[in-house]
């Protein structure tokens, strides 16, 4: 290796040899000194200080030994953070690496693979904080604001549409709520009886347009008849009686059950609200408005609530980092020996066999690098948690880096304990230092 020192010695005359070698040391030092100074003040001194500080109490005046470390593993606040971080470590690096691998293999087979990788990689350019804001919008609870719940609501609406009587309640105590859902006449009926099922509190928006007045049906000697109607008219009206100006409720599902609850027959109401069960044998029966009429509309999953917050943040984080895994693994894939893969395919290996027995083993170093990088990233996760988790669930979403910040700067102002948390973080990422060292030695 050519170096200033060697060069100078070679050309230097006897007399000024010592002066030259002095210069040969000074020049490199001038190159290195500014950076060394910055690294010394901003990195090395703080690391040493933090380690020492972690053995002192909040005020920094009293040595308390491992007191802070004991608290680290006993206080609820911190144990939650450590547990959550363990979940992050267990789930996210593996998922991100797997996604990256699958997408890298698949994009090789489409003509627009470059464009696809660009799209998936794009979130990497955005700050983790802003990515958090983006996902906080996605996770809004009301289905008409949060995109995710909107999609679920649309799916729900096709599978189990909301009933048009979702808000309705009985107008009199003659109609009662049933344990299984739906409303039934409290009194049991026999053939020849007429069931009056009056409902109120139906919002004007839900009242059918072009509806007709309810009609009290005639009784049927061998059957049960009845009416479902809006037992309310402008000005009031008497509850329990079918009056002029009160609308019949059409297309409502009505059920006839025997006394043991066994379904005998079901029908739907006419436009004037009337219905009839014909040819009913003697006996006593219960008439009810079926439960599905009262099915409430989907109200949204609380993604930002205490129980789902950590998975929700993990999804956002995976969205950000999959692009990284994809691009790195695709680059590794591009330099794999194609002949090997082709040979296996010609020998009749299925695509999944090729992937499992050839691609993955050959890619092992790249996959490991991605996995380890993600492991370290996940241990330090911070921005995205603070951006997505509303203040009320930050305790539930807590992770080590966030716990450290909140302990030091978020109101607790306990620099001793916060230092101990930072040291824990350092100890956890330390194994990656040895990996770095090994890589460096291999290169050197």
């Amino acid at each position, binding site marked *: 290796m050519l170096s200033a020192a060697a060069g100078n010695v070679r050309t230097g005359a006897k007399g000024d040899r010592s002066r030259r070698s002095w210069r040969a040391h000074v020049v490199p030092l001038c190159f*290195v000194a500014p950076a060394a100074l910055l690294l010394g003040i901003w990195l090395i001194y*703080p690391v040493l200080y933090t380690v020492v500080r972690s053995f002192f109490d909040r005020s920094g005046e009293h040595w308390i030994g491992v007191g802070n470390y004991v608290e680290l593993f006993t206080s609820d606040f911190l144990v939650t953070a450590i547990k959550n971080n363990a979940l992050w470590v267990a789930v996210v690096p593996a998922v991100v690496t797997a996604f990256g691998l699958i997408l890298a293999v698949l994009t090789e087979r489409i003509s627009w693979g470059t464009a*696809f990788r660009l799209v998936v990689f794009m979130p990497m350019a955005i*700050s983790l904080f802003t990515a958090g*804001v983006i996902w906080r919008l*996605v996770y809004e609870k009301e289905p008409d604001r949060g995109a995710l719940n909107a999609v679920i609501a649309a799916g729900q609406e096709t599978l189990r549409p909301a009933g048009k009587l979702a808000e309705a309640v009985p107008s009199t105590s003659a109609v009662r709520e049933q344990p299984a859902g739906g409303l039934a006449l409290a009194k049991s009926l026999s053939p020849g009886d007429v069931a009056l099922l009056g409902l109120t509190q139906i919002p004007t928006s839900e009242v059918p347009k072009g509806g007709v007045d309810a009609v009290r049906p005639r009784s049927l000697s061998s059957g049960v008849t009845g009416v479902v109607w809006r037992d309310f008219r402008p000005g009031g009206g008497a509850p329990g009686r079918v009056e002029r100006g009160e609308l019949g409720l059409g297309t409502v599902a009505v059920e006839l059950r025997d006394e043991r609850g066994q379904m005998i027959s079901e029908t739907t109401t006419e436009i004037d609200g009337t219905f009839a069960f014909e040819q009913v044998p003697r006996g006593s029966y219960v008439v009810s408005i079926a439960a599905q009429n009262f099915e409430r509309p989907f109200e949204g999953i609380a993604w930002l609530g205490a129980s789902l917050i950590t998975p929700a943040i993990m999804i956002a984080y995976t969205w950000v980092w999959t692009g990284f895994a994809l691009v790195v693994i695709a680059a590794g894939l591009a330099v794999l020996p194609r002949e090997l893969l082709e040979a296996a395919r010609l020998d009749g290996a299925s695509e999944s066999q090729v992937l499992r027995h050839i691609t993955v083993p050959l890619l092992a170093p790249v996959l490991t690098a991605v996995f380890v990088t993600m492991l370290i990233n996940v241990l330090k996760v911070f921005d995205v948690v603070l951006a997505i988790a509303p203040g009320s669930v930050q305790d539930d979403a807590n992770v080590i880096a966030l716990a450290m910040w909140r302990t030091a700067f978020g109101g607790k102002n306990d620099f001793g304990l916060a230092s101990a*948390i930072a040291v824990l973080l350092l100890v956890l*990422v330390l194994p990656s230092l040895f990996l770095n060292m090994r890589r*460096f030695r291999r290169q050197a």
Partner: protein
Amino acid sequence: MTASGIPINNRPNLPRSPVAAALLRSVARTPLNVLLATVALLWLIPTLGLFLTSLLSPVEISQGGWWRVLSQPALLTVENYKDILANEAITSALTTTLWVSVGGTAATLLLAAFTAYAFAWLEFPGRDWLFLCVVALLVVPVQMTLIPLFSLYNNVGLFDTVLGLILFHTAFGLPFSIFLLRNFFLGIPKDLFEAGRIDGGSTLQLFWRIALPLGRPALASLAIFEFLWNWNDFLIALTFGRDTQVVTVAIFSQLRQYGSNIELIAPASFLSLALPLVVFFAFQRSFASGLLAGSVD
């Protein structure tokens, strides 16, 4: 892309024309194309949602989701952007972010280039140990430095200043930058330096005339990388600033009263990610190669 096309071409009775063959291949891959198109949409929609929300008036935002604009484009308006560009807190945050990012990037690159050159081509006592030390510093979590530097910043008046943020970013950008540039400089042929030395070039001249120009690709991707890293920072600016706010911190302080002021958060967030996206799309090649250099051998 050609790999699994082979079986199709082997069958004798298929059309020979390349257009027909390509058509057949794409039909055979329709399920895969649909699947990947769905994935691509999943990756685009969240950001699109933020963008379209930022283009809705506050009244419309409270009435329902951004997807309504797909059927009612008339709802779109740039009012929110006009408002936040008149909002002093946001504009000054954007300016601060720009200063911090540019300053931090320039300082990191300059210092790292000198240091990396010394590590690669100069001889001095303890060189390899020092470099090992730099490699070790690569893994230090920011959290390890926050508390002592918070006290230090308060004592020397760096707290809540743009300079304080620039110095912090510079120091934290150094280990990676030195590592990357040293490896790059080592790849420059030795003969070039020897020839320069024989022509009477000083160490500084060799650095300036040979190493820096040849190192341009590495410096470029490093510059993009550092710029984005600084621009996207949240934790450091949150800890070491109060009135000196970068844009992520400014948004965060709005986020605390979330729901009422989404018409401010959405456009501000979009502005804060617009520049990185432009940088990313303009320099995607350098960006990806910088990333690769950082993570894989």
